[in-house]
């Protein structure tokens, strides 16, 4: 735990990049090639960075990555919440965020689109600090909320191609997880409705709803905007679960899982049945509403009741708005409790997602049954590859086809805890699937957390799974307690893979250890 924090703190770095100067070149030197002015980052001339920033890995990723940074801020908040808050605010300042509201992704393509987790991080950092200091920093929350409104609006305007509350987004951080390169135009033409794009937006909506409700406690001016995010969430969740007359559904009733849907230019569409993290991300869009809070916000409550009474068709597939659960909480979730049970059946199956070391980004079932799709004579396929990617395809040495990644595992744990908050101890699932052992969602979250921390801890025979097969790291007293926080981990053995000093989001293990008292 100490080394995890050390890595996070050592990975602060002075970062300097002024796009305008870089495009134009320096007066003491020959001008850069003319094409530079129309190439990389030429739409980001407002960007002027000269700050100390938390890096993913100072050697391999010596530049900030906005979505990584959001995850870094959660464990950082445990030891220096002021720094965590400053970092989150910084990304939204005028010399970072684009005038149109987009967050800069990273220097090699500021315009890339990564999952919108900034509001989540802001909310978590606020809550962690409030718990530790006994008082929340409302100024921070207000400041960041206003800027996030701009970013949310950018998403809605740019990434919902048909205005249907279903989002594309493209790359969305998961590199090679899809059949096609998600950053590039499709070889088939048309577009993909992404299960994760829409789910991330649902989560974003709920995070902003949470912040608005917190602010509304002391300032009624925020009640209206809370209603806005509540309703927007309902639209997104509804679109996710049913597209009404169009018969397009990201939910696959037969498999009990969420898949992306490929839309061809001729109007045909069909699901891409890859069993991947993309189908688990719908779990992240979950929030509970406390009855006490609702009673304190009469305006918000009135509007909520009106909406439930008058738009029943939007509510029916969404969440248990009308069936108060434990202690009369209300659940807001893309995934209904019945569907949750079916998704978890796959997620907790050791032959599918559940590894001894966490949740894999791709089901192991694709080892024997690779997903293939033939388009115009070219076969595209997705295999289970638990370590490095076997192809150089989109993503360098990052691989999402099987390994274990901390940021999404962390969100799975947090989501299960939220579901448990509403569903209580009576809702049990088999964990692992087929084992006959029934567990509450809280216990399932704990089990996943234990499996993740096991990557770094010594086993009975003195070995640490993170070190893999390396003899010296496993046995030499001058090496074996030196823990590296890799970018991702082998889906079967837990060995570290990818960048070796990515304490950034793998540093989330410090938060897991802290909350489990490990």
């Amino acid at each position: 735990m100490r080394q995890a924090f050390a890595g996070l703190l050592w990975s602060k770095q002075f970062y300097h990049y002024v796009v305008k100067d870089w495009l134009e070149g320096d007066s003491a030197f020959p001008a850069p090639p003319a094409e530079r002015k129309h190439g990389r980052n030429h739409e980001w001339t407002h960007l002027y960075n000269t700050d100390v920033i938390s890096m993913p890995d100072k050697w391999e990723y010596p530049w900030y990555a906005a979505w990584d940074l959001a995850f870094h801020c959660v464990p950082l908040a445990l030891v220096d919440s002021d720094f965590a808050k400053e970092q989150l605010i910084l990304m939204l300042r005028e010399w970072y965020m684009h005038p149109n509201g987009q967050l800069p992704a990273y220097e090699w393509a500021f315009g890339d689109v990564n999952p919108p987790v900034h509001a989540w991080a802001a909310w978590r950092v606020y809550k962690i600090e409030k718990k530790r200091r006994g008082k929340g920093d409302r100024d921070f929350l207000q400041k960041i909320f206003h800027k996030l409104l701009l970013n949310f609006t950018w998403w809605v305007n740019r990434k919902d191609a048909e205005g249907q509350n279903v989002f594309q987004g493209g790359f969305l951080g998961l590199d090679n997880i899809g059949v096609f390169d998600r950053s590039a135009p499709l070889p088939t033409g048309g577009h993909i409705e992404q299960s994760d794009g829409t789910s991330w937006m649902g989560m974003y909506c709920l995070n902003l709803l949470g912040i608005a409700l917190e602010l509304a406690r002391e300032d009624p001016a925020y009640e209206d905007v809370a209603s806005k995010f509540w309703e927007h969430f309902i639209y997104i969740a509804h679109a996710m679960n049913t597209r009404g007359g169009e018969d397009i559904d990201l939910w696959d009733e037969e498999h009990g899982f969420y898949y992306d849907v490929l839309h061809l230019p001729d109007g045909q569409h069909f699901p891409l049945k890859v069993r991947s993290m993309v189908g688990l991300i719908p779990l992240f869009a979950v929030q509970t509403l406390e009855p006490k809070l609702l009673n304190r916000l009469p305006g918000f409550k009135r509007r909520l009741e009106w909406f439930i009474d008058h738009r029943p068709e939007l509510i029916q597939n969404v969440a248990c708005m009308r069936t108060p659960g434990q202690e009369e909480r209300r659940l807001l979730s893309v995934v209904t409790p019945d569907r949750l049970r079916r998704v978890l059946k796959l997620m907790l199956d050791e032959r599918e997602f559940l590894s001894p070391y966490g949740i894999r980004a791709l089901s192991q079932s694709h080892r024997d049954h690779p997903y293939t799709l033939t388009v115009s004579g070219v076969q595209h396929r997705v295999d289970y590859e638990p370590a490095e990617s076997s192809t150089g395809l989109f993503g360098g040495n990052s691989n999402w086809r099987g390994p274990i990644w901390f940021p999404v595992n962390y969100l799975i744990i947090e989501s299960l805890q939220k579901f448990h908050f509403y569903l209580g101890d009576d809702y049990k699932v088999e964990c692992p699937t087929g084992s006959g052992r029934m567990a509450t969602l809280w216990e399932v979250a704990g089990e996943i957390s234990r499996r993740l921390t096991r990557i770094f801890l010594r086993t009975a025979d003195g070995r640490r799974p993170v070190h893999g097969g390396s003899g010296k790291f496993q046995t030499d007293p001058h090496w074996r307690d030196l823990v590296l926080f890799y970018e991702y981990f082998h889906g079967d053995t837990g060995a570290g893979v990818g960048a070796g000093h990515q304490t950034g989001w793998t540093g989330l293990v410090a938060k897991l250890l802290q909350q489990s008292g490990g």
Partner: protein
Amino acid sequence: MTMRSRAYRWNEDGIAGICDRHQMICFAIALWNGRDPILKERVFGLTGNEGNHGEDVKEYYFYLDSTPTHSYMTYLYKYPQAAFPYGWLVEENRRRGRGGAEFELLDTGVFDEDRYFDVVVEYAKAGVEDILIRISATNRGPESAQLVLLPTLWYRNTWSWGSDEPRPSLRRGKVQGRGAAIEVDHPSYGRRWLYCEGSPELLFTENETNYRRLYGAENGSPYVKDGINDYIVHGVKEAVNPERVGTKVAAHYPLTIAPGKTMACGCASPIQKSQRPVRRPSGPLSTRSSASGNARLRSFTRRSFLWTFHRTPAASCARRSRGSCGPSSSTTTW
């Protein structure tokens, strides 16, 4: 392999380095085992095109500890005693291709028989304005081995790009008694000092691109970024400035370390002017006079501030009559 010769336009790098909030003043270590073709000034790795699975660092370094305020930080670098297999790492990884395993530094055998140094860098702040630095090297191998330790201070190059930024300076400072001092004079930070234990030779050069090496063109000054490299590795005496002034400087500590032993040196380096007091990686340079600064340094080496891994009687360092770097009675272990 042009990094050692090219002045960076945007950001600096270094091993276990620290800098101020605006990265005007940088501190890091450089090392030489007497066999490498170049100084070890930065960790080595393969680029995206060179690595069989994309870019990958091929070194072993560890962030051991840090307090949230950075009042104490420590870092470990494992430096092989054999010549670093730069070429082999590049060639073998290229040969293996995507399907093969990555070829790592451990696989080359350079760590066999534990023929390497554990180099530990620690920073401890005595106050907002005072940073104390201790660098210790332990020979894990079976035989005595040589190690050149080069604590290095330099400015990020902000003056060569055509704007009117003034060029700051580093020069040798006066010291009463033993020790060496570097006087830092920067337009934003004023005058401050870095004190080095013992009487190390101070090697001055400029943080300027070596155009002759890279492009066969004329250099504006005979002293360029890789001047200290050429002085140490190739013995080019004229590669450093005899006037003892420049924009990059290293204190030269040549050591011979017996097997299992640790040697250390200390610097008192006040590095940064923080916008916000205390909270940033370091505090501003000391504004003390050189005499009291030197006293501060000695008290630092005598004090047991190494609370995390302390086993070493740090005083042994300050007691040495020559060079002030000496073997301590035990190795540092954790």
